[in-house]
């Protein structure tokens, strides 16, 4: 079987859950899994821990020039690593860094590239994968025709499993040219300590039915009790009731949690496009005709201002 390289991302020194899924995906393909990680903020022990998820080796670009995700520099180093390791498959998680990086790597190493991959490949005849298209409304089964392949996987394409073991960590020289660093990242603004919406297993999301930003306390309270991330509909972020990065839907974040709770959101098709790969959807809306109920697994017709505090209490009681 092929030799597989996995690009893993870390945040605040920890490997991202979506990257662990990428490692699990690669492991699921069979064969040896080597990973590549960047920057000085992630510790050796954290990287060795990738062995527990199926990686045998970690190439660590331990160089602080890579602490920020400079797209071109990452792409050059990953392409170099694929060549040096003789990797014919690169796996990574769909992400704001992974996608633009992988597009450049594909051109550099002349690989077939498929993003939004939802399942393990079918290699019984050729190399085929299933990918999500039309913003979650359909799938395409495509064959990758070049010798080298790059798969950017969608959340939940593989289940993270602990297999035991540690990975060996090797230093890998960041060989990117100075011109690859021509993009100057001057500042990073990031919510810390919060559960990040794109990666969240549980999401509580509010819409225009909540009337105003001052009413988000009960949404945050419910999210806190559940350990969930908070999201919102587009008009809510357009009106600045909530930050833009919470906006879910066609033109916002696409989420794939185990549970999505929608409060006071009508369920416009553009909103549904961002939530249609959720495992379970709960809709709370005072209008029994709200279209969201058709896409829901569980529903309550009622006033959010009465239902949400009660629900929060009931969850507390059940824990």
């Amino acid at each position, binding site marked *: 079987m092929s030799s597989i390289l996995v690009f893993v991302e870390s945040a605040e020194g920890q490997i991202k859950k979506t990257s662990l899924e990428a490692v699990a995906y690669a492991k699921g393909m069979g064969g040896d899994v080597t990973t590549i990680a960047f920057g000085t903020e992630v510790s050796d022990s954290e990287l060795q821990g990738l062995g527990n998820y199926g990686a045998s080796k970690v190439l660590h670009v331990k160089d602080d020039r890579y602490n920020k995700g400079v797209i071109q520099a990452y792409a050059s180093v990953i392409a170099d690593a694929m060549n040096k390791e003789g990797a014919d498959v690169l796996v990574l998680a769909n992400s704001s860094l992974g996608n633009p990086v992988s597009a*450049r790597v594909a*051109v550099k190493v002349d690989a077939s590239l498929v993003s939004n991959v939802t399942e393990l490949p079918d290699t019984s005849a050729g190399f085929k994968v299933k990918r999500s298209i039309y913003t979650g409304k359909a799938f395409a089964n495509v064959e990758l*025709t070049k010798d080298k392949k790059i798969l950017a996987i969608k959340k939940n394409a593989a289940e993270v499993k602990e297999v035991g073991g540690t990975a060996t960590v090797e230093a890998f020289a960041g060989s990117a040219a100075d011109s690859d660093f021509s993009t100057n990242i001057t500042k990073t603004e990031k919510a810390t300590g919060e559960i990040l919406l794109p990666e969240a297993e549980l999401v509580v999301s509010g819409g225009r039915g909540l009337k105003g930003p001052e009413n988000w306390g009960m949404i945050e309270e419910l999210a806190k009790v559940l350990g969930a991330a908070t999201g919102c509909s587009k008009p809510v972020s357009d009106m600045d009731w909530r930050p833009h990065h919470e906006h879910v839907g066609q033109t916002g974040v696409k989420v794939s949690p185990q549970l999505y709770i929608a409060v006071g959101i009508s369920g416009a098709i553009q909103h549904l496009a961002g939530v249609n790969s959720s495992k379970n959807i709960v809709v709370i809306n005072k209008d029994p005709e709200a279209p969201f109920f058709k896409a829901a697994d569980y529903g309550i017709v009622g006033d959010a201002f009465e239902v949400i505090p009660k629900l929060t209490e009931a969850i507390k009681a059940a824990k």
Partner: protein
Amino acid sequence: MKILVCITHVPDTTSRIAFTDGDKKFDANGVQFIIGPYDDYALARAVELKEQSGGSITVLNVGGAETEPTLRKALAIGADDAIRINAEPTDSLFVASEIAHVAKDAGYDLILMGRESIDFNGGMVHGMVGEILGIPSISPVMTLDIDGDTAKMAREIEGGKEMLEVKMPLVAGCQEPIAEWKIPNMRGIMSARTKPLNVVEPSQNQSGTTLDKFELPPAKGAVKMVDADNVAELVNLLKNDAKVI
């Protein structure tokens, strides 16, 4: 400043998706087509930048003749001329190599695209074009301002954003809130009819994938309704039925 905006011609966001020809072809029957919403943001920002500091905007689409009304709409919104590369796109590499070929010696300062197409959802064409042309590619871009020969941008990252600066030329994959979508006015619509729309034949014919078949997701089961006075029942279902809390 010379700006190229690459636009897709995609089903309206409310369209029902269906396939024909043994699930090998999108069923366009009764479907309304629009400029891709992210491409529309890119175009809107291009129009604003042109208003501020002059220059020209070319819009480009890789597609068949049926995409021309969409290109005309972009001309009505404010582009000066249009290019249609006459081919049915097969994948991101196909589109990217054709765009890069046309852009190669044309001297664009900015190549603006959407963060992703809403039919294919690749999120890949901008990065590929950047790499083929050997210039930076930044995506997803939330704000874009020009200061001399430098582009200043905010790029969305999970849970926040990063500010960055880079010298032009560059490729950017745009998303909101970069600009507000623009609606063509009567004058724009009139003038769009006579603006040049040049058709060029594809020359690269690259691709890395072939389509096997399309597929629709399985139908959703019926919703279980719970009484508003009995939220404990919902908690019970989530805990013991769905097993998610």
